[in-house]
């Protein structure tokens, strides 16, 4: 569904491309997760919008031969600003050294820009190739016309068109002006390269931003500045949904550097991406704004969430998980009575988790002449346009969102409430405003990964293999931020490692129960796969041990022979990807399991006191991963992770080095979840505030070494940012059991009091 047009003549993006430049625009059908359609107040999520076509990626070639490629996805550490343009450059036969990357602003003409869901490469791989191939063909036609020879006699080499018969050559830059006058070829006329001819895809490249990131020159949201800007720090209602009752700012206004205070209205439910409301302290610098906040005297109307207590809530979730729920998927005779002999049951629990990207939330915005210009570390600049336009009552097209580097995102920065705050304040103050969240604000006013309770039950035969399987999860859904009545898991998140249990068993019943949200729930790296993968993979390990069978051999037995999972009659969104293109193939899961078993030397590993190896396998974001974790636990309970082995089948891999980095990082992210990841609430107030009480893994706590093995594959590219987390979490817990004989069913370890 791609349509390419020559936009040189309508002088699009004049800033980036000067006269004589050759510019291509691509229109691209956009995928929107169905969840966003549920009660979302943003009109960009409407049905009509879903059906629309949107211009997408751009490549421009200057007469001097410089190739500009627009990066329209956000850079938060996945090297996407390099990897996706690299695909275009490959099909263009461009010299990578002569390519410059230009960061796209928020603009629906690029297509989807929500850098989330591990989908940048897989959703734009073909589009990028077509865009590069189109440009290449037009340059080739321009050269053929100049030489008056058939285009079929011409070919391209690095940055030049060649006519082999006569030995003539023309550089791309010399052809740019001619090519800009040609009609754009039809998609059917494009010849994409054979994989064997790829220059860059599969080999990868270093981040184009490497030096700037190592010298302090990269501009993050925190570093954006505008002439005449003031700084704002906001005291939010301590309880979700609360409101300001009274404000006394007398002492605040005495703080040197403080200019004034400004109230921000509370949101109108559903919260979605609206500002939470509160009182902003406006100052000449960040420090003064922080100091002024300390002196505010505010009384609050906390609202109904004042009674939220996470310890009580945990009990409620568990009780719900023990009652029949909504059936998500049923295999065999699962509707009949569950067997009563040889039954194994277990409860698992994962608490609320915060994102804590290293860069706290921050945004700079200026409202001027009815328009907003924002500089923001956002994963989703079009969502910035949408929320700012609805908050300020201006057109989306009048919101220009520049995307800075993101100091981490992990899903938090796809929700632009903090950017809306800056825009709202700028409109009130008539000057540019930079909103800076303290770490405490970041921890206490997050869109948390859902707290979840999972009940697992199996009846097993004499070999310990399940004859019947029941799993039931209960968690407040993300859809609750868009529609307060939502209490059941939504299909895209149930599909994350729950609906798609890959085991070949005669009877399977997969259920979900209701849970009311009392805080904002949102996506966090790997999302529902975290708690689903944890429960399924730890329970499987429990069954294997109970049967005295090797966990790897046992899991392969449960998965059964290679096959494609059949979801006929089941709602299975498959991460928004076409199921024919990205089927769930158990053979590929078996492949990574066998690979990691071999590479890690699994068969020779011996568990001992305080030393153990754990295994888990999981498909998420269309990628198959199997992981082995080694742990050492000293007598005083100190845990070390000397080694992690992880095998990955992500289809075609554009940038292998970037993939390795993502899986190394995923192991560290998973370490934080298992060891200490826990957000709790009392009286509706979040109990954690900074890295002292919401610790994340440090260098000595993280895996000392993670080995990543990439499966060679010609399957379409899949995700790499998130799929490493879920199997690591489960394998780590399984390793703790192997080392200690103690099961970890409630995360994190720190709340068990056992090990940390």
């Amino acid at each position, binding site marked *: 569904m791609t349509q390419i047009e020559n936009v040189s003549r309508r002088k699009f993006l004049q800033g980036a491309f000067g006269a004589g430049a050759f510019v291509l625009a691509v229109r691209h059908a956009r995928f929107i997760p169905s969840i966003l359609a549920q009660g979302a107040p943003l009109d960009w999520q409407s049905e009509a919008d879903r059906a629309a076509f949107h211009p997408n990626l751009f490549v421009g070639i200057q007469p001097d031969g410089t190739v500009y490629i627009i990066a329209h996805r956000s850079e938060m*550490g996945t090297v996407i600003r390099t990897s996706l343009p690299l695909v275009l450059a490959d099909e263009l036969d461009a010299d990578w050294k002569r390519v410059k990357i230009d960061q796209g602003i928020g603009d629906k003409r690029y297509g989807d820009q929500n850098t989330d869901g591990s989908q940048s490469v897989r959703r734009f791989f073909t589009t990028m190739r077509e865009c590069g191939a189109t440009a290449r063909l037009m340059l080739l036609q321009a050269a053929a016309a100049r030489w008056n020879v058939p285009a079929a006699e011409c070919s391209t080499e690095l940055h030049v068109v060649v006519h082999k018969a006569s030995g003539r050559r023309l550089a791309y830059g010399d052809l740019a002006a001619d090519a800009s006058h040609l009609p754009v070829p039809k998609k059917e006329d494009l010849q994409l390269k054979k994989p064997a001819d790829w220059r860059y895809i599969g080999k990868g490249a270093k981040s184009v931003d490497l030096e700037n990131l*190592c010298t302090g020159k990269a501009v993050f949201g925190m570093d954006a500045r505008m002439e005449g800007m003031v*700084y704002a720090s906001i005291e939010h209602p301590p309880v979700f949904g609360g409101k300001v009752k009274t404000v006394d700012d007398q002492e605040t206004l005495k703080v040197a550097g403080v200019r004034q205070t400004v109230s921000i209205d509370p949101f109108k439910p559903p919260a979605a991406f609206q500002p939470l409301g509160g009182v902003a302290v406006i100052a000449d610098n960040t420090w003064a704004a922080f100091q002024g906040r300390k002196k505010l005297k505010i009384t609050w109307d906390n609202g109904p969430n004042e009674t939220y207590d996470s310890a009580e809530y945990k009990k409620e979730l568990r009780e719900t998980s023990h009652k029949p729920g909504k059936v998500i998927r049923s295999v065999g005779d699962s509707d009949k009575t569950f067997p009563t002999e040889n039954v194994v049951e277990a409860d698992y629990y994962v608490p609320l988790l915060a994102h804590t990207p290293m860069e706290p939330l921050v945004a700079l915005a200026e409202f001027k002449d009815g328009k907003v210009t924002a500089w923001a570390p956002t994963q989703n600049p079009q969502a910035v346009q949408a929320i700012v336009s609805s908050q300020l009552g201006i057109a989306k097209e009048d919101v220009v969102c520049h995307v800075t580097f993101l100091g*981490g995102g992990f899903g938090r920065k796809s929700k632009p409430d903090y950017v809306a705050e800056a825009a709202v304040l700028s409109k009130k103050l008539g000057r540019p405003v930079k909103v800076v969240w303290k770490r405490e604000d970041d921890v206490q006013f997050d869109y948390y990964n859902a707290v979840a309770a999972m009940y697992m039950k199996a009846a097993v035969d004499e070999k310990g293999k399940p004859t019947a399987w029941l799993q039931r999860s209960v968690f407040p859904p993300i859809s609750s931020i868009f529609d307060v009545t939502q209490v059941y898991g939504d299909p895209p998140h149930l599909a994350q490692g729950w609906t798609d249990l890959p085991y070949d068993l005669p009877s399977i019943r997969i259920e979900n129960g209701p849970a009311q949200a009392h805080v904002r729930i949102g996506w966090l790296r790997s999302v529902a796969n975290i708690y689903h993968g944890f429960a399924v993979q730890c329970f499987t390990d429990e069954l294997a041990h109970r049967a005295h069978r090797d966990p790897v051999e046992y899991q392969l037995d449960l998965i059964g022979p290679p096959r494609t999972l059949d979801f006929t009659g089941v709602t299975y969104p498959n991460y928004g990807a076409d199921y024919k293109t990205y089927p769930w193939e158990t053979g590929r899961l078996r492949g990574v399991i066998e690979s990691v078993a071999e590479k890690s030397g699994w068969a020779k590993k011996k568990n001992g006191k305080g030393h153990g190896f754990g295994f888990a396998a999981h498909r998420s974001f269309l990628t198959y991963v199997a992981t082995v974790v080694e742990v050492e636990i000293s007598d005083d309970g100190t845990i070390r992770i000397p080694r992690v082995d992880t095998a990955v089948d992500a289809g075609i891999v554009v940038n292998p080095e970037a993939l390795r980095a993502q899986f190394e*990082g995923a192991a560290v992210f998973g370490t934080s979840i298992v060891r200490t990841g826990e957000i709790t609430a009392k009286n509706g107030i979040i109990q954690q505030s900074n890295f002292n009480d919401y610790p994340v893994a440090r260098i*000595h706590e993280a895996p000392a070494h993670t080995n990543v093995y990439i499966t060679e594959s010609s399957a379409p590219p899949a995700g790499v940012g998130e799929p490493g987390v879920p199997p690591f979490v489960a394998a780590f817990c399984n390793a703790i059991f192997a080392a200690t004989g103690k099961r970890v069913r409630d995360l994190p370890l720190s709340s068990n009091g056992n090990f940390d």
Partner: protein
Amino acid sequence: MIKLKVNGIDRSFDGDPDMPLLWYVRDILALTGTKFGCGMALCGACTVHKNGQAIRSCVTPMSSAANSEIRTIEDLGANGLHPVQKAWMELNVPQCGYCQSGQIMQAASLLKGTPHPTDNEIDEAMAGNICRCGTYQRIRQAIKLAAGKTA
């Protein structure tokens, strides 16, 4: 009036002496390579050198920076990349990169005093610097690569 030297340049400051050095270099001098991460010396993103030693600028009031020589990431490689920066680039250490100014300043300080650190010495010196992306394995390798190359 507080006088200090930042990246070799004489500066004076007559604002709130309690203001942390972090906000002075970021908001007033516009040296934004030094990052804000926690405000409580818990994460190390704000690490700079004070008289050659790595310190957390987010909890260093201007009053205690008086008459000192401060060096930030902007000046570390001012005369060509520092060996630590070169090693960081060679091994593709950064992911998002936000913490890396602090990591690099901390690592440079470590290698100055301990040119060939062991794994334990690296852990000890770097434990105060959080990287949420999880680049620790490469940080350790990069410190070893840079070892012995720093003056």
